[in-house]
């Protein structure tokens, strides 16, 4: 029984990280109609930014804050004004292709410009374990859960309780109506991009100690984020959370009880099952066919 709980706890912690990436991804789709295939790289870049910061002698927390700011500017605003705005009028597919191209370019810049090897990043949490009722849980798992949880709760509160947050939700649900209501749509969309960039930076802080910073670390996290978002429901922010945690937990359980070889298949099977039998996602609302 102890194993089971341990697996659930660490799975939830990992899943929370996927959820952060998936959350930003979902917000971008809802508010701006952007499917960001470079989401994984949005996690990889802050990781390297933190690495660079530490190479200059900065402590981790400062490097992290600077990375958040840099992310918000470059991957949030820069991405929006430089790539999304010029392309969105051509339709969804050219934008998706552009994000694909961006993902390739960014990965290659890091690889060619810096290194193809992996680099360690220290964990923000002290190492060691915590013992509760005979069950061992690592400090970093608890730390991750607390931090990710705080952010998610904070974000939900912001979206539901503040005026700006509600305006953002309105934009996500129906851009035209929002505009008619006098909401500054462009500003709201910008906020979404900024939030996505910061969420990805937080994910980087939490996951790089385990993943190790490498130019292609974004591939697997981007994929998990995508799966998590679809599984949970692409048009519901809470769906991203559920999707991420579900993947994290089930992966651990399958890897332990069933077969380590097909661990990666878990997210995938869930994803395929959802697409075929409940395409709006577990928490999503069925999309009407737009004529």
């Amino acid at each position, binding site marked *: 029984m102890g*194993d089971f709980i*341990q*697996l659930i706890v*660490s*799975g939830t912690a*990992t899943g929370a990280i996927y959820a952060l990436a998936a959350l930003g991804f979902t917000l971008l789709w809802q508010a701006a109609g952007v499917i960001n295939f470079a989401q994984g790289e949005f996690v990889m870049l802050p990781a390297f930014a933190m690495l660079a910061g530490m190479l200059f002698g900065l402590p981790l927390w400062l490097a992290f804050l600077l990375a958040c700011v840099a992310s918000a500017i470059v991957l949030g605003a820069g991405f929006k004004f430089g790539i999304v705005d010029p392309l969105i009028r051509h339709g969804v597919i050219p934008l998706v292709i552009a994000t694909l191209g961006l993902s390739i370019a960014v990965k290659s810049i890091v*690889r060619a410009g810096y290194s*193809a*090897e*992996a*680099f*360690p990043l*220290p964990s923000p949490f002290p*190492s060691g*374990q915590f013992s509760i009722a005979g069950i*061992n849980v*690592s400090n*970093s798992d608890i730390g991750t859960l607390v931090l990710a949880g705080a952010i998610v709760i904070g974000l939900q509160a912001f979206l539901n309780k503040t005026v700006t947050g509600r305006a953002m939700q309105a934009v996500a649900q129906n851009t035209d109506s929002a505009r008619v209501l006098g909401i500054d749509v462009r500003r709201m969309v910008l906020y979404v991009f900024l939030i996505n960039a910061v969420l990805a930076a937080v994910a980087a802080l939490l996951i790089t*100690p*385990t*993943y*190790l910073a*490498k130019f292609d670390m974004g591939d*697997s996290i981007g994929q998990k984020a995508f799966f998590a978002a679809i599984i949970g429901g692409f048009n519901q922010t809470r769906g991203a959370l559920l999707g991420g945690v579900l993947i994290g937990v089930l*992966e*651990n*359980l399958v*890897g*332990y009880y069933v077969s*380590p*070889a097909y*661990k*990666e298949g878990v997210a995938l099977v869930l994803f395929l099952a959802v697409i075929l039998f409940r395409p709006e996602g577990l928490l999503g609302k069925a999309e009407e066919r737009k004529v």
Partner: protein
Amino acid sequence: MNRTTRLFAALGLALAITPAFGQAPIKIVGLVELSGTGATSGTNFDNGVKLAVKEINAAGGILGRQVQYTSSDTQSNPGVAKALAQKAVDDGAYVVMGPVFSGSILVSMAETQRAEVPNFTGGEAASITQKGNPYVFRTSFTQTTAMPKVARYIKDSVKAKTVDLMWVNNDFGKGGRDMIIAALKAEGIAVGADISTDPGQVDFSSAVLKAKQSSGDALFVYTNEEESARALRELRKQGYAKPIIGETVLTSQKVIELAGDAANGAVAHVGLTADAPLPAIRKYDADFQREYKSRSDHNGLKGYSGMYIVKAITERIGKVDGKAFAAAMKGAKISAKDYPGVLMDVSFDQHGDIDRESFLTRVENGKQIVVQTLPPLGAK
């Protein structure tokens, strides 16, 4: 200008524009993993070869000719390695160095064999030298030589009755797993949990949990660099207290760098290590650090010593001839006294396998310490 001056000018001009006879460079081509899962191994191997080439050229080259070394990125992909091997052959390579990854060399060596070009590899899978290819030569032990040494250590020093295995699901990992199981059985040790992991695997929580819950007395970890680091971190995170033993990779430079404190206490048998207490290796270590600003891992040693073996044998046969080279390699013995570049006395058998001293290492305080030197198998 008077006549003498004109004569000298003409001579000078002629000398300047005529390529000196016998100075055509010797082409050595490197096929190395510079990206993908093998980037660490390939880059180190490549750097080792480059360092050796630099030293060799500064000392006059091989048989008076300079060595021209070019390397290409196999991207850790056997298909690419195969194409690059063809290219190397087409470009007239004398010797091919690499790839390092067993999966790649197994495919690319068909090309070099077809063209009768000697091919050194850093790969450790046993099957490399079991295919009857007279043109492939190792720069490190085959798993068939290494694993019995590990098993003996486990029996004598660790005194484990049952050992859990964690291995990576590729040719390297699978070959190692099969070999260690055979070697353990020969020593009367049972195998506990048999945990496979993926190349590039990131999350080791369930794998480590399995190891923790098993009744084994020790854990044998056989994965590639990054994965070993992640496994060690996870083992530390989950408070694993039993002995962790590996082979070559586990206590290597890169793993120590990536795993940090989590690597302390890990033990591994290594064929080559930059921490070995031998003067030739100490010198190499210092030179490598000066050149590349980072420490060499065992792959760097493989590349470096391999290049010097090329020099040694070429000078022995007195000509730049691939076929003669391959023939001379069979049963060759090279001593480090004559050729300090090979770092340790080495002998080759008929299959291209190597026999040499080896070391037992442990990680203490973030450094790899040699705790024991083991003689070559053939010396016993």
